[in-house]
C-alpha cells in the first residue's frame, strides 16, 4: 500500500472513530464519572504547563514587539498586539500543542498498553464497547477543557504582556488594558473557541486511534505514543491555517 493510500485510510478510520464515539455518547450507560475523571486528568492536570506557557508567551510578545512599535511611535498599541496575537493565534495553537504533547501521549500509551495486555479484548468480551467507554469520555473531556485552557492561556498571556510592559517599559497599566480591550472583538474570541474545539477533536481522535491500533507489544506502545504526538501536532498546525482562512471568510475577520 502506498503512502497516499495508507494516509487516506488512516484519515477515514480516525474520522469513523470520532463519528462512532459521538453517535454513542447519549446511550446508556453514559460514563459520566469517566468523563469527569478525564476532565480532571486532562484539564486540571494541564493547568500548570498552560499557565507557564501562556504567561511567558505574553511576556516575550511584549518584549519582542515593544521596540519595533516604539520605532513607529505606536508603543501604546503593545497591549493590542499582545492580545490579538494571543487570542487569535498563539493561545489556541500553543495550548493545543502543549496539550497534544502531554495528553495525546498519555492517551495513546494508556490505550496501547490496554490493547497489548488484552484488556480491550476483555472489555469487549464483557459486553462493553471500548469506543463508548474509553474514547467518548476522552473526546468530551478534551472538547470541554481545551477551550477553557485556551481562555486561561489567553488571560494569563495578556497578564504576562502587562507585567513586561508596565514593569520594564514606560507603558501605563490603564493604557495597556485600554489597548487590549480596543484590539479584541467578539469574532476574535469566537474564532479562538472554534480553533481550540477543532484542536481538541484532533488530539482526542488521533491519540485514541493510535492507541487502539497498537500492535507489537511494548515497542508498539512506544511507536503509537510517538505517532500520536507527532501526528496531532502537525495536524493542529495544518488545521490552524485552514480554520484561520475559513474564519476570515465566515466571520469577516481582517485578512488584508
Amino acid at each position: 500500500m502506498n503512502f497516499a493510500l495508507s494516509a487516506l485510510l488512516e484519515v477515514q478510520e480516525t474520522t469513523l472513530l470520532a463519528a462512532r464515539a459521538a453517535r454513542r455518547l447519549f446511550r446508556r450507560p453514559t460514563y459520566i464519572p469517566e468523563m469527569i475523571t478525564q476532565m480532571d486528568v486532562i484539564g486540571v492536570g494541564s493547568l500548570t504547563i498552560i499557565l507557564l506557557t501562556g504567561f511567558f508567551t505574553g511576556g516575550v510578545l511584549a518584549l519582542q514587539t515593544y521596540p519595533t512599535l516604539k520605532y513607529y511611535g505606536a508603543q501604546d498599541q503593545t497591549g493590542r498586539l499582545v492580545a490579538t496575537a494571543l487570542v487569535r493565534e498563539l493561545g489556541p495553537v500553543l495550548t493545543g500543542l502543549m496539550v497534544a504533547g502531554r495528553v495525546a501521549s498519555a492517551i495513546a500509551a494508556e490505550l496501547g498498553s490496554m490493547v497489548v495486555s488484552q484488556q480491550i479484548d476483555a472489555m469487549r468480551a464483557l459486553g462493553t464497547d471500548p469506543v463508548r467507554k474509553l474514547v467518548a469520555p476522552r473526546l468530551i473531556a478534551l472538547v470541554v477543557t481545551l477551550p477553557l485552557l485556551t481562555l486561561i492561556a489567553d488571560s494569563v498571556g495578556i497578564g504576562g504582556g502587562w507585567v513586561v510592559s508596565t514593569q520594564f517599559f514606560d507603558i501605563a497599566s490603564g493604557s495597556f488594558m485600554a489597548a487590549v480591550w480596543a484590539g479584541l472583538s467578539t469574532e476574535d474570541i469566537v474564532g479562538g473557541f472554534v480553533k481550540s474545539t477543532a484542536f481538541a477533536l484532533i488530539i482526542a481522535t488521533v491519540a485514541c486511534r493510535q492507541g487502539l491500533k497498537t500492535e507489537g507489544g511494548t515497542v508498539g506502545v512506544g511507536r503509537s505514543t510517538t505517532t500520536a504526538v507527532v501526528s496531532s501536532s502537525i495536524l493542529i498546525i495544518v488545521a490552524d491555517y485552514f480554520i484561520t482562512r475559513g474564519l476570515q471568510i465566515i466571520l469577516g475577520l481582517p485578512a488584508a
Partner: protein
Amino acid sequence: MASTDVDVQGLDATEGVDRQVSDAAADSTFAEVDDRERSIPAIEFRDVTLSFDDRVVLDGLSFTVQKGETKIILGGSGGGKSTTIKLLLGLLKPDSGRIFVDGEDITDYTEAEMMSVRKNMGMIFQEGALFDSLSVYDNVAYRLHEQEVPEEEVEQEVRRMLSFVNLEDAIDKMPIELSGGMRRRVGIARALVGGPKIVMFDEPTAGLDPPTARTICELAIKLRDLEDVSSIFVTHEMNNVHYITSEYAVVNEAGEIVFENEGERLCLVNTKVLMLRDGGIIFEGTDEALRKSEDAYISRFIRGY
C-alpha cells in the same frame, strides 16, 4: 445452583451410577436427555477459514461443543487455537464459513449485536487481562456495574464468585499486588459473573506452577460438572488434559465439592480433545484415543519425543 449431575457412561452402568450419583441427580440427568434444547450444540464451527495476509490461520475448521461439554483444543504455538476463541467471541471475523452459538448464526453479527451474545459468554485470558486501574472487587464487579445493578447485589455476587475461586481475602487488592495464579483466578471470577453458559479458557495455566495450574483445572471441572457450562479449554500442556479428561466434581454428603477419578469403571463422555495443526484438525476424540494415536506429530506432542 450446585448439583451432582455428572455425565458418566457406566461400564457397569447400574452399579456405577448408583454408587456415584444420587437419585435426584439421575432424575435431573434424564430430564436433560429429554430436553430437545440440549440437542442443539452450544457452539458450532462450520468450515471456518481465516487468513492474515498470505498466512492461513484456520483452514476449513469444523467442530461442535454440546451443552455441558468441555472441548480441549490442543496444539502448538501458531496453530490457530486462540484465534478460534477470538472468532467465537466476535473479536475477529472469518473469511468464510459459519459460526453458531446455541443454534444462532453469529457470523455476520455487528459489534452491537455481538454485545448481547457475549453477555452469555465468559472468557478467561492467558494473562488474566485484568483492568490495571480497578481493584479486584471492581474487576469482578465490572459486568454488573456496566448493567447498573444495585451495589448490594453486586457485592453479594462478587463475594460469591471470589469464594468460588478461593480468593475472598484479595477483594480489596489491586491487580499489581497479585501473583500470576491469583490474577488468572480473578479473571475466572470476573468471567463467571452473570452465570455465562459458555466459557472459554485461553491457555489459562501458561507459566504457572503445577499446583496453581491444577487449581485452575479444578475450576474448569467444577464449571463443567456442577454448573452445566459448555467450555473450550485451549492449552498445550498435557497435564491439563489429564486432569480435565480423567476427573469429575461431585458434592459429597457433607456438602463439600470433591474430585473423583473416572478410574477403570467409568468414562467421562462430556470432555473431548481437538488437536489443531496449521489451522486444521488433525485429531478429534477422547483422551484415550489421543493417547493411542499413532500419528507421529501427535505422539511427539503428547510424549515429547
